[in-house]
């Protein structure tokens, strides 16, 4: 499959933090969730895709181009929403759009106006006076209005009400339906991705813990709950992480068959894991 986005062995060092050998790709027509705790390196990766941060090693490719050297061509194909949407606060939405519009070859003004109406963005209010959620909606309208091949959204649902959040997720799913565009969705709110991500990339402390399809993730990881007295060394070794309470233990396993065999007929259950569970236990096991 033709990847619209590809990172190969990307490294970057900061004081007290480093991205190490980050590799993953996103084919056309899919949604990829970039998950990880705060400070894991998600925003740095998003910035590298936009060419705002230069990798020290490895390669970033968007539609086959390097964002640092083909910056104009790459950014013309990307619709972005930064973690904290920042535009000049003393301008109104219309003025901001009039500045942004000429830069994009495929800007669609009727679509932009329809999005502003649909998202109920006030056009006569200073950008600084908008709520956090409305600023994000404004950034989304700008990102969606130029038929981008790749939407790069950094924590786009933060500050949004549940109703708009759900409709946004539906819109993003629809956006990739024609198989031409893709969405990279960075978040630590994993429930958003369980609904719509085709690929999940989990990053922690600057390293990719796993990057695979949603089905592969949910087929691999399971939650095990049981009486803490069942927790012997062999069970512990089969768990990627475990919490032990006075009455029960909870752990994550990538080998549910083995766990089921060992705990068959005893006071324990093996059930589907959520992305939250996976992020929590895989992160702790490192």
């Amino acid at each position, binding site marked *: 499959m033709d990847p619209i986005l590809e990172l190969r062995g990307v490294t970057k060092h900061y004081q007290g933090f480093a991205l190490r050998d980050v590799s993953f790709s996103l084919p056309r027509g899919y949604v990829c969730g970039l998950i990880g705790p705060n400070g894991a390196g998600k925003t740095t990766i998003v*910035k590298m895709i*936009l*060419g*705002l*941060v*230069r990798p020290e090693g490895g390669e970033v490719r968007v539609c086959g181009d390097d964002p*640092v050297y083909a*910056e*104009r*061509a*790459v*950014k*013309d194909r*990307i619709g*972005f929403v*930064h973690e*904290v*949407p*920042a*535009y*000049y*606060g*003393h*301008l109104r939405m219309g*003025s901001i759009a*009039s*500045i*942004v519009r*000429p*830069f*994009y*070859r495929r800007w669609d003004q009727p679509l932009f106006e329809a999005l502003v109406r649909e998202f109920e963005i006030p056009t006569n209010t200073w950008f600084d006076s908008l709520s956090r959620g409305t600023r994000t909606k404004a950034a989304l309208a700008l990102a969606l209005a130029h038929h981008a091949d790749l939407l790069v959204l950094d924590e786009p649902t933060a500050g949004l009400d549940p109703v708009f959040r759900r409709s946004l997720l539906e819109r993003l799913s629809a956006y990739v339906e024609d198989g031409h565009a893709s969405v990279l969705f960075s978040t630590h709110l994993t429930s958003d991705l369980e609904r719509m991500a085709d690929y999940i990339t989990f990053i922690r402390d600057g390293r990719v813990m796993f990057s695979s399809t949603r089905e592969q993730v949910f087929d691999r990881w399971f939650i095990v709950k049981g009486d803490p007295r069942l927790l012997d060394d062999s069970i512990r070794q089969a768990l990627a992480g475990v919490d032990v309470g006075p009455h029960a233990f909870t752990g994550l396993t990538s080998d549910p068959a083995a766990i089921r065999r060992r705990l068959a007929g005893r006071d324990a259950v093996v059930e589907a894991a959520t992305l939250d569970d996976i992020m929590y236990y895989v992160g702790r096991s490192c």
Partner: protein
Amino acid sequence: MLRNALRKDLLLNARHLWGIVPWFLWVAYAMTEPEAGRITAVGAAFIGSLMATTIGAREDKLRTTATLASLPVSRGTLVEARYLVAYIVGAATYLIVVMAAGLPWSVQRAAELCELKTLLLTLTLASAAIAVLMPVVIRFGLLGVLVFLGVFQLLGVGLMVAFEFFGSRSSVGVFSAIERGIAALHAGLEQPVVILETLAIVGLAIWLSFRLSVFLAKRRDL
């Protein structure tokens, strides 16, 4: 794209550039002083260019740098637009002073302010300010401007103290020497050789400053 970047900078900063307006009340007053015409025009262009140069610092303060750099425009073009805006604002402020010479109470002659040597001196001083400050703004943003101005101030104070206590001449003499140097350059700018030399030095300084700014802008992580 340069046109878009230029338009962006002018639109985004129009409100801040209105901050120059109160200064022009003083310009209107200065038109009544017989000796103040040239220095007001040169000073206006110098300050206008300097203010426009700090656009990047305001973008840092408002945290819009990353957003603007995410638009489909190269960093080189964004830097180019900043240089152009600095010159446009400098030229506009100079033009306003020339127009102020036409005020009913003015004792200045607009034609005198438009002499080639005065225009060239203005270009030289404004270019020097832009050439020195722009790379600092591009690389370090608001903090860079503050540190730069602070260091410049301290350097001046340090020089004054050093000359007062250890020098054979008073620091006033040093500043007078700078003033005399500018006056000598102004007078010399009537000679074709000096004009060519000055234009060559200004052009080289701005080109080097621009190349350095582009280099720094491309390597800056946002």
